[in-house]
């Protein structure tokens, strides 16, 4: 195994992990506020098509990423309107958001099929980004660095800021937070919007970086892996990053197995691997810790204040 292969492999894993890392970070914040949003996949697809469309019209991938974030956030706010404003069931509404996002992105995407967008130019000098060795550090899309910075930002926000403390309090005991005088609905709405924006940017990574073209349902269920990742990480952002790269490794195995003509197991098996691992990991975690003691206590429960 030569050094070039290892560098290529690392770059594949980091790239393929970035969308689930972004979406997972967003969902982590949402769940810490006590809301379970199963619409991650839908918001990712909305972000994917919005990012692509904005880039096509403006020619600027930077604006495209902003557009993806806005679209994802709008999808999340739509979800928030139902679960917070009308106290609808979070699981059912989240599933509906996924179906809605899949459908709407396909509809809008019809007119973009076959078009190609300009990729991001590197934010580092080309000598660094194209250097055969140093590109393992400098050779990625700006979204990859954004995701890594966000890991630290989310960890710092939740642990050290007052706003983060309030957000955790809302997820831990909504009625108490309400009785102290915090706006439970307001905090949750903002968290959901943030989660949507992160999922949207994660989705845009598919349409703007991995394959700079639009295809229906191109996120291929990665939103569900992001959801499992949050549980896997025990609602901690550092562990979420480790988990995301672990799942990225599994997903990369499929590509390499296919490319190497690895025929002991059919390629479908490798493709199914991350999803199988999701099930196995979740089962192992629930066996180890029956109560799921790290989970925010109010996760998934509607907030109904006593009058």
């Amino acid at each position, binding site marked *: 195994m030569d050094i070039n292969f290892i560098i290529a492999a690392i770059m594949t894993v980091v790239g393929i992990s970035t969308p689930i890392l972004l979406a997972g970070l967003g969902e982590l914040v949402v769940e810490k506020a006590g809301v379970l949003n199963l619409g991650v996949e839908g918001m990712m697809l909305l972000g994917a098509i919005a990012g692509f469309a904005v880039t096509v019209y403006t020619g600027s991938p930077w604006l495209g990423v902003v557009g993806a974030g806005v679209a994802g956030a709008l999808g999340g706010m739509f979800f928030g309107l139902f679960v917070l404003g009308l106290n609808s069931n979070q699981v059912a509404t989240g599933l509906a958001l996924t179906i809605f996002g899949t459908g709407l992105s396909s509809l809008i995407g019809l007119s973009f099929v076959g078009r190609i967008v300009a990729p991001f130019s590197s934010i580092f000098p080309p000598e660094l980004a194209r250097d055969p060795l140093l590109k393992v550090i400098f050779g990625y899309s700006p979204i990859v660095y954004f995701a890594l910075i966000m890991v630290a930002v989310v960890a710092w926000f939740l642990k050290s800021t007052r706003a983060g*403390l309030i957000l955790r*309090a809302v997820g831990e*005991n909504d009625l108490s*937070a309400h009785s*102290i*005088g*915090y706006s439970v609905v307001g905090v949750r709405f903002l968290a959901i919007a943030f989660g949507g924006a992160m999922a949207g940017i994660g989705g845009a990574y598919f349409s703007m970086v991995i394959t700079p073209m639009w295809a229906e349902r191109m996120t291929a269920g990665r939103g569900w892996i992001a959801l499992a990742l949050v549980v896997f990480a025990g609602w901690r952002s550092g562990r979420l990053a480790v988990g995301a790269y672990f799942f990225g490794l599994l997903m990369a195995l499929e590509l390499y197995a296919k490319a190497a003509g690895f025929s002991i197991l059919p390629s479908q098996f490798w493709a199914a691997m991350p999803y199988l691992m999701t099930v196995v990991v979740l089962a192992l975690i629930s066996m180890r810790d029956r*109560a799921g003691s790290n989970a*925010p206590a109010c996760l998934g429960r509607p907030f109904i204040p006593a*009058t």
Partner: protein
Amino acid sequence: MRPTHLGPIYRGLQLDAKVNARLSLFGITKRFPGVLANDNVSFEVKPGAIHALLGENGAGKSTLVKMIYGIMQPDGGEIRWNGERMTVSNPKAARKLGIGMVFQHFSLFEALTVLENIALGMDAKIPARDLENRIRQVMTQYGLMLDPHRIVSTLSVGERQRIEIVRALLLNPKLLIMDEPTSVLTPQEVEQLFVVLRKLAAEGCSILYISHKLHEIKALCETATILRGGKLVDTCDPRTETSRSMAEKMIGGGLKDIKKVDGRTFGAERLVVRGLNVPKDGHFGVALKDISFSVRAGEIFGIAGVAGNGQNPLLLALSGEEIVAEGSAIAVDGEAMGQLAAKKRRLKGMASVPEERNGHAAVPDFTLAENTVLTARDRLGMVNGGLINEGKARTYAGEVIAAFAVKAQGPRSLAGSLSGGNLQKFIMGREILQKPSVLVVSQPTWGVDAGAAAAIHQSLVDLAAAGSAIVVISQDLDELLSLSDTLAVINEGRLSRPMAVKDADIEQIGLLMGGIHGDPTAEVGHLSEELAHAHQA
């Protein structure tokens, strides 16, 4: 300036012109769909006074203080603060005025630290280090010791209450509202709390103390306002009243004593628990360790203890919801029950009533008749060949309703439509009329009005007199002292040695509830010293 619509109570109120009241309420009225929670309530609290607000569950005490603290708005009447009329639009506004409140159910965040919990309750943004210093200062000043960096879920109930008190005291309140503060404390913790409250009052802070425990009010308060059915029925000086006279004002009628025959003798041992061990369930669970006791025919066995010390796992192990590894650890009339499921245990005469009425003891969306099928089907033959005999179920539900004076439309009314007290009477009746050999009940009168509580107590005494063995698990020590023949204390999953109630020592029970094991005499002295020390601090 006096509003003209106010009722006779206001006219009878003595307004002291010299000492301005800190808080005055005039004709406060609050209406909920179908209920008048507060009906024209007027009273005032003087600076530095410890003022009791007394009433049964549902008398409207909590609603009233929620309006003072700004959680709810009154539909009518006015609130004056230091003589000035004002609307308290939210708790933040209340705290700004200098009103602090310690809730009955703590508004704490289990997964956060003491410091984080207190920081959340502060309206002003204070850097964590300054806040910690101020917290330590308040703690030493009032002798409320706590480690600010402990996670709340690892603290005892008494310690959690201290967080709430410290949180309120950090705001230098002029009025502190305490909502049923002692319902979960050991007698010693109650004493410590009273020391803090008296010290606060001496410094000029008014205290509005909500309770239905009369001996505490007699010991602590100089004025008591009594509410019944949302109306103010009397204002009195508790120091000159007897507990009985206040209780009668509170329930609006004569108080019935439990009729217990003196000098009863007990029969053979019916329930024997020997070396019962249950591993802990989940992260925050409590394991049961080597629990042993026996209950004879005709005996009521009380299990006291502060909530969360293993009462729930014990009830589940006794009811059969949790199967016990050692089958012979639980035996009824000599027959091992530990390995049997709840259904089999019921058939063999071992019945139980859990603490939670809705969703555990009864299905709220089922009719009363359907609810009887759930626990009485085998013993009373309500199911034949897989089909429910509805007639039989309805007849039995009717019998329970009649025998226990349950206020319900009939066997077809939904369990969820009954008030707490009536549903509890029905659930108890459902088990008692099956004439179980052993009955295990948890919190039989939790959140139940005094009339229903008396009826439930009497029915347990009668069942024991008929030869059943009864276990009552309760946090209400007064209830256990008046009801049971024998008493043991559960603490951290261990059960103390049983003692006869007639020669039980309340201080010793309190120490056991607080977690003093082993040879009590040796450690009692030690802790008394510690308490005395805390009082001086």
